[in-house]
């Protein structure tokens, strides 16, 4: 007797996540299905975090999930044009959380969070949002962007080439936002909308998970380190200290 295909598991997991994310939209992004008939392809939109070069931006992407999700990671491709050290020209994002955990001897010097079945759309989006502002220049997907970013960072912002491109791209997304009827939050207060208190146990846990990130009121000048708590590994590579 053959076991049932793992597909039923992926449908279940995706339906649960979609329902949860749509019922309780969280800070920083929105998700929808590309086509209501297909749970394996999601349209996501990321809001540029306030107090970064991406403030006010509306960045769209498509996530495609494999049949054996959540045992294997989805793919993540920006459809909005992005100039970023870790984003390929075709929009594919290069981030460790989306990599399956295969053996990679000798690349172990950089600690990096790999995919595991508890990762989900939310944790991916949080990692991607964080990556926007904290590129990892050790393994750039776009070398030119990476060089430019380092010049910008090492000149403490005096070399504005990188900044200008990002701001221009961010500005260009306003049209998309208007077309979609979305008002992108531009202040931390708006960005970090509090989810209403929920009755179900699970949503309380969710709130707890994200509260730490935003509630402390100490965001002003150290957001590079603490803005998103769950991506130590990736941001560590970006290295603000160097």
């Amino acid at each position, binding site marked *: *007797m*053959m*076991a*049932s*295909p*793992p597909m*039923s*598991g992926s449908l*279940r*997991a995706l339906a*649960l*996540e979609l329902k*949860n994310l749509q019922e309780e939209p969280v800070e920083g992004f929105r998700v929808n299905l590309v086509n209501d008939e297909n749970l394996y392809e999601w349209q996501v939109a990321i809001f540029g975090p306030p107090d970064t070069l991406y403030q006010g931006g509306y960045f769209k992407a498509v996530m495609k999930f494999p049949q054996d999700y*959540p*045992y*294997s990671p989805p793919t993540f491709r920006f459809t909005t044009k992005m100039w970023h050290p870790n984003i390929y020209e075709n929009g*594919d994002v*290069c981030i460790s959380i989306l*990599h*399956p*955990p*295969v*053996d*990679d*001897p000798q690349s*172990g*010097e950089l*600690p990096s*969070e*790999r*995919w*595991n*079945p*508890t*990762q*989900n759309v*939310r*944790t991916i989006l949080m990692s991607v949002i964080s990556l926007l502002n904290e590129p990892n220049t050790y*393994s750039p997907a776009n070398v030119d962007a990476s060089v430019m970013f380092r010049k910008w960072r090492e000149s403490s912002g005096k070399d504005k080439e990188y900044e200008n491109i990002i701001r221009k791209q961010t500005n260009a997304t306003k049209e998309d936002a208007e077309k979609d009827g979305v008002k992108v939050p531009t202040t931390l207060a708006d960005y970090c909308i509090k989810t209403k208190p929920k009755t179900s*146990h*699970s949503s309380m*846990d*969710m709130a*707890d*998970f994200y509260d730490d990130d935003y509630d402390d009121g100490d965001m002003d000048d150290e957001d590079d380190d603490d803005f998103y708590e*769950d991506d130590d590994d990736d941001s560590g590579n970006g290295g603000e200290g160097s």
Partner: protein
Amino acid sequence: MAEANSKPGESLDKALPSGVEYDEAIMAQQDRIQQEIAETSQLIGDHEDLLLLSNEYSEEDNVYQGKIKDLRSKYKCFRRTRGDGNCFYRAFGFSYLERLLDDRKDLERFKEVAAKSKDMLVSLGFPAFTVEDFHDTFMEVVEKVERQIPVEDLLATFRDQGLSDYLVVYLRLLTSGYLQQNQDFFVNFIETYASVKEFCGHEVEPMARESDHIHIIALTSCLNVGVRVEYMDRAGSEEVNHHDFPEGTEPKVFLLYRPGHYDILYK
């Protein structure tokens, strides 16, 4: 010979275009292998006579034939598990829950430990939303055991790939959780990774990563369930060696280890 047609450099370039694609190529190959295995063996098999093991080795293979004889003097039969990299977790999970069908007292203890385990995982930083999903599925099966469902139903649960894999994930999370909670100790046994957390991210949490002693010590300690592993390998005499995890506990689960694989043994 065969190499005449292609320059080695060329084919290498094609075979290894980039990190990401290389990863994907490996994954695709692993998928194909897994599919073949899935088509030929159940996640958890039926009871089988240990004598059947003899057929798998040459009659002149004195070491193995001797060990099978020794094994037969100690155990009644065995169940095979699918060699999909998850066999330790699946074998352990099924065998222990099967035993709990007849052990009310230990079931109560275990249920309490299992119920508390979710908070431990969330406190370690695993996303609550997904951990809860795996936890709930796990607890539903524990509750089935509490209702003393027939063994056949428990077997059906573990043969249902979707459900069974959820249980494996949860056991992997518990293993990872215990390792991380006790990282000061376990860091001494981790060689190729910079930290226990990183080891867990690569070798424990992902599906299909095989288990070593360190995984077994962690899971059995986490749940306080004794496991005896009988080793059937080339080493030593014509007797099987065994090892109890955690050391010194009374075993409740008996596993047969052959290089790279665990099956379930029955007294």
